């Protein structure tokens, strides 16, 4: 009963995150949207962990938080690189490679 609410919350967050990834043009915002999804995952994991009385989920969540930081670090570096070369962080403009 309690579980469902957490799962619902996670699902909503996931959807918002996905929406952000799909529609935002700003690279940084896209990265932030991904963070939202990861947080949705974390909520899921923690909720299940609690529900199943199993610590693994929480451990997993910790790993995810750490890895997400690394991902965002790398992501921002690349966005910055793009900004330097293009003076723009609009991901829609990056379409040199296609076909």
């Amino acid at each position: 009963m309690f579980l469902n609410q957490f799962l619902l919350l996670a699902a909503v967050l996931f959807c918002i995150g996905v929406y952000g990834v799909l529609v935002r043009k700003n690279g940084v915002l896209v990265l932030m949207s991904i963070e939202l999804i990861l947080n949705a995952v974390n909520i899921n994991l923690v909720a299940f962990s609690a529900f199943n009385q199993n610590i693994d989920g929480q451990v997993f969540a910790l790993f995810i938080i750490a890895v997400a930081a690394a991902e965002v670090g790398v992501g921002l570096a690349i966005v910055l690189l793009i900004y330097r070369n293009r003076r723009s962080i609009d991901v829609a403009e990056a379409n040199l490679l296609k076909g």
Partner: protein
Amino acid sequence: MFAAEEVSWLFRNVWLIPALPALSFVLILFFGKRLPFKGAEIGIASVVVAFSLAVLTTFAWIGNIQSAESHSEEAIFLEGPDGEQTPIVLTAEEAGEARGAPIITEVEWFSIGPDANKVILGTEGNSDAGHDEDGHSDDEDEDGHSDDEDAGHDDDEEEGAGFGGDDNVVDVAFAEDGGTVAEAHGDRFSISIGTLVDGQSVMMLFVVTFISLLVHVYSTDYVKGDRRFTHYFAFLSLFTSAMLFMVLSTSTMQLIVGWELVGVCSFALIGHWWEEKANSDAALKAFLTNRVGDIGLLIGMSILYFAAGRTFSIPRINELAVNGTIPKGTLTIAAVCLMAAVMSKSGQFILHTWLPDAMAGPTPVSALIHAATMVVAGVYMIGRLYPVFFIGFGIAGSSINLMAFIGGLTTVGGGALAFVQKDIKKVLAYSTVSQLGYMVLALGMGAYTAGMFHLFTHAFFKACLFLGAGSVSHACHHSFDMKADMGGLRKYMPKTFWTFMIGSGALAGIPPLAGFWSKDEILVGAGVWPNTGGNGTYYLPFVFGMITAAMTAAYMARTIWLTFFGEYRGHDEPHESGARITTPLIILAGMAVVVGFLNMPSGFVKFFGAPEGLAHRFEDWVEPAGVSTFVTSDNGFTHAKPSLSLAIVATLLALTAGGAVVAYYRALYAKDSKATEYTDGVMSRIPGLRAGHKFLEEKYYLDHLYTGAIAGGTKGPLARATDWFNQNVLDGIVNGVGKLSVGLGNFIYNIIDQKAIDGVVNGSGNSASGAGQFLRGMQTGQVRQYATLMFGATAVVAAIFIFAV
């Protein structure tokens, strides 16, 4: 005449006769050009030897028959009490001599079928026979099995020959081997190659080697200086060899091989002067037309092969046809198929058109191949498998059948066409067509002996005529145009003239020349004339035969008058040909005179008080024992009785027709010795100016009218119509088929192959490529679209799996 061993040796080794020319072919091909006479000497030498052997064989065979006749009662006595058919210990030679049965010598050529023991089948006369006709060593073929099993085979053969006492079995020696062994070893069967010596083949051996020899001699002069002199002789040798090989066939497979080989020699020799397209066209036409007929040959032989229980053996097939093992329906189909082969090879309507064109070859070749020998192969084949045709077409007791009809049609049609030719060789070619039709007609009416006899006599006089035509053309600077370049040659070349006259007379059936006897026998064979008996009542063929008898005389008269009478129309002085040309002519003319007497009716013999033994000699010698038994068996054929009245009527008919033509030309030459026909004065001149002159010439005008009514009536509308039909319809069909094939080929290649099939192939490639291009367009380079695609796909798949599955 000969000691028994010699006879035996001769019969067992007739393979030498075709082998010698084959050897000569190889030698001429490789060494001919370096020899003093450019290879001709090899060819002649080989044919001389072959001819000598053939003569010896002929006499041996005749002696054989004669002695068999004198011992016939003894032979019957031997078999009579032996109803259970236990083997009689009797050597094959003895049996063969005693009965006049075919003497078969074969070796296994190859064999196919499941048998682990690898038993060599077939009769193997002696190890000397273990060479095929072309001098190649045959040892590999037998895998060394022959030697150790030789003895066993001899036993088999003797046993088989013992059965030869039975009347219904043609060649039991083979039947024993081929039949029982095949049964004992499952479906393994062998294809044998060998020689079959009997009356029919001996007759052909004689004819082929004889005419070949003369043609060889003749050719040394005729094609002297030709750039391909050596090749010419090589092919003559090859042809001789192939023809003899075919003649001696023991199996239908061998027959097919020989059949095709003579065809290719014909092709090569027709196209001898291949620089001109017309010649190579003619060669192609000959070969292709024959190929059309070969469809029938291949299919017919296949049918017989299976119908006779997987054997190619000719005697075996005949035997099974006679004793009713092969159903009549099967025989009919096979016979119809084989008829197609006859039609092409022997120039029967409607596949005859190649034969006149084949005159593009050198004249001696025409004489040898396209008159005397190769073109009768079809007739010969009918004779070889006569039971098949006889029963298949239901010849006995009938009044018409396919063979007789085709023969009849051909003989009349060919004769009519001979009228309108201005090329002397074409006249002879159509005459050959007509005469071949006669032979087929004869066989179609059940007159086996008559057909064979006509084949025999025709070979001599037609060869004589062709060589004569060649001699004429030799004199007239290689022209064959009777109208433009000949006339009055009687004075310049008497030898040629007289031999030509004899030949023509023989062809026209003027007694007592050869053609008279054979033609008469055929007409009798129709069974229509009172008191002749025969196999049926062949009214229509009889009428055809009579018409032809008349026409033959007429067109030959026209030819002779155009060529030898009147005044010379060509340029330069013609001259008589040399001895190498005239000698063969004289010999052949001599033969044309005498060979007819070989088969005199017994009535005729009695009338002149000659010994009884001289009557129907040919019949006795040539009708093989197998066919003799066939004659007396329930469904066999019967001989017709000769009729003096018919002979007189037919002769008168020929003389009348010939006489009418002669009268016509006499009148013409009297008016203008260089004219070749009436330039139709009535139509071409302006009536007012020429009316008086015309009246003065009234006599001629009447003459024209009378002769025109008889000769011209035939010559004019009918012959022209036939000619038109021949040139436009039949030839049109032949050419049309050719064009159609090419057209169809073009259509199939250009439309179906290149557009449809290749289109599908290329199209599938292109569509794959197009799909790739389309899909490539979806790769926009927009990372958000990528993400959308990714998540969209995820969502769609998830939805499907959750809700739909």
